[in-house]
């Protein structure tokens, strides 16, 4: 069994509640930092650990913390991004639902490091029952002296509040999240200034993902150097992967970032292989925004090397033949799935979630959706494929926030790798209504193994 640092206690009955969590070593990291470490010491350990933001961007967490401006007399804020909405991603929800105190513990330690006396958890509004779980965990932590004034006699004050959103994927973007937390529309801000200088209420702010903040707990308990030894190179530590689609065992798994994609997909410890005896067609390995990979590029890179579950290996080959680890939303497609339909559904998603500020994104996502709708429903023309390519290229890099890129990339990758399937839809509009294209050549090199 692989080493687990976040979900190691998930099987303990009642771990959701304070008493059980505490009995199993919970809140030890708060004791350690408040009694023996300065805030800068904590940041140093996190830097040494090599922890990278687990929300999708993979930016080094310790470095992000060290950018935080510290003008005298101005409050600083830590905000936890629990607006998990990237299609394919459901890991933070799992963590908050089943071991909420791990997040609260990580938040207290991280609040201490960043100097935040008022910390917010911005959670997507649809997770209504998790709001209640978190509020209960916060109340328990309060009652047991882990929150409030002068925690453990250290002189450090901290309060944590849960703030529900109301249904907007864009609020996962950190400046849109801050706007929303201020009671406004979730329109991303122009950067700079970055939140580290001017964030919530114009004050220096750090925004981190749920999993990132929870990971601070094992980093403090084992030390940054030890943590950095897990995984491969700059992909240090463990990562939660939420696996879904046509696999035998969908769910949330904690992996050490040193296993191969093949092991993750086929071993019984993780996904358990493709469901119903079907063959693998494609995979989106890091949430809907990252490029889709056909089967023949998923398990091996274009150079023929084993593809690993790391930031570097999954992006090997760039967007031509690679993808990204992203948020860890691992979506698997079997031979019966239609790439055109999937691409249309993702385009519709981004169309729905575009905030509308930047015209390339607002108009572009609309055009992508309309053209893909036509192709999916038998009204496509051959020149539409080039038009799609043209439109996505005009969105990418031309917007305030990365949602535009996130909308463009899945379309580009689908055309790059599955152009013949788009062409088949257009030349066989009636047949395409009755059946799917199937596997075609995408998995030829792997048929023996599958």
């Amino acid at each position: 069994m692989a080493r687990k640092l976040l979900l190691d206690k998930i099987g303990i009955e009642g771990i959701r509640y304070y008493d059980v969590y505490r009995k199993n070593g919970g809140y030890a990291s708060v004791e350690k930092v408040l009694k023996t470490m300065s805030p800068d010491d904590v940041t140093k350990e996190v830097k040494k650990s090599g922890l990278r933001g687990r929300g999708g961007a993979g930016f080094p967490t310790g470095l992000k913390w060290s950018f935080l401006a510290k003008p005298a007399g101005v409050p600083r804020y830590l905000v936890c991004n629990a607006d998990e909405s990237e299609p394919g991603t459901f890991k933070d929800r799992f963590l908050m639902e089943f071991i909420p105190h791990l997040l609260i513990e990580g938040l207290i330690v991280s609040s201490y490091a960043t100097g935040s006396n008022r910390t917010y958890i911005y959670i997507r509004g649809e997770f209504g029952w998790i709001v209640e779980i978190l509020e209960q965990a916060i109340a328990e932590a309060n009652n047991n002296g882990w929150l409030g004034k002068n925690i453990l006699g250290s002189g450090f004050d901290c309060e944590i509040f849960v703030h529900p959103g109301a249904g907007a994927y864009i609020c996962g973007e950190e400046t849109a999240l801050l706007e929303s937390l201020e009671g406004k529309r979730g329109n991303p801000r122009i950067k700079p200034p970055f939140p580290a200088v001017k964030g919530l209420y114009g004050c220096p702010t750090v925004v981190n993902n749920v999993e990132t903040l929870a990971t601070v707990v094992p980093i403090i308990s084992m030390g940054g150097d030890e943590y950095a030894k897990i995984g491969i190179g700059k992909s240090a530590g463990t990562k939660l992967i939420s696996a879904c689609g046509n696999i035998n065992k969908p769910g949330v798994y904690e992996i050490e970032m040193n296993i191969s994609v093949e092991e993750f997909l086929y071993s019984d410890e993780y996904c358990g292989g493709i469901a119903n005896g079907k063959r693998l067609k494609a995979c989106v390995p890091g949430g809907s925004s990252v490029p889709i990979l056909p089967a023949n590029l998923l398990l091996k890179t274009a150079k023929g090397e084993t593809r690993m579950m790391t930031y570097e290996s999954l992006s090997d080959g760039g967007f031509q033949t690679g993808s990204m680890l992203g948020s860890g939303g691992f979506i698997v497609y079997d031979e019966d799935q239609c790439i055109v339909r999937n691409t249309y559904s993702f385009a519709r998603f981004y169309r729905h979630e575009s905030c509308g500020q930047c015209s390339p994104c607002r108009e572009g996502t609309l055009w992508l959706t309309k053209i893909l709708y036509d192709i999916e429903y038998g009204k496509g023309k051959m020149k539409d494929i080039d038009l799609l390519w043209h439109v996505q290229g005009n969105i990418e890099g031309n917007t305030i926030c990365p949602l535009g890129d996130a909308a463009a990339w899945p379309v580009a990758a689908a055309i790059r790798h599955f152009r013949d399937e788009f062409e088949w839809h257009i030349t066989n509009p009636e047949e395409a209504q009755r059946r799917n294209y199937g596997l075609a050549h995408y998995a030829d090199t792997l048929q023996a193994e599958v």
Partner: protein
Amino acid sequence: MIKFSEQKLKEIEQIISHYPEGKQKSALLPVLHIAQQEFGGWLSVETMDYVATVLNLLPIEVYEVATFYSMYNLKPVGRYIFEVCQTGPCITKGSDNIIKYIEEKLGIKPGETTADGLFTLKTVECLGACGYAPMMQLGKSYREHLTKEKVNAIIEECRMNAEKNN
């Protein structure tokens, strides 16, 4: 004239206290959730104007927020809202068929409400339950691994609850 109960006003005061002084606008999203729940499941102009007075905001500040977020209903809805996910991962597990089945079973299309005012069908984008697809949101809960049988049971459950509470 609509008005929050004393208990709800206290709850709102509590929420406002989560934010620094003078930043009560931060409470707008949570308070709109409460308003929607209290005043018929949707946000009428009257409701939005009232929320503006409670939080000392201009009405436009409330309108622009209410129209941005998908969880706020801007027209009347049924008592039970089936919000069925239609995004890619759910499609791989047959959400298209589930949506079609609910349409047939209730005789409504997405966005419509049954004549008895009990059910509204909404198709929504990813709710973060991809491993448990197909799925829908019903009130504060998620209903996952949907099948036709489960949909039947949920409809029955809603009908029984409605009868009980009438």
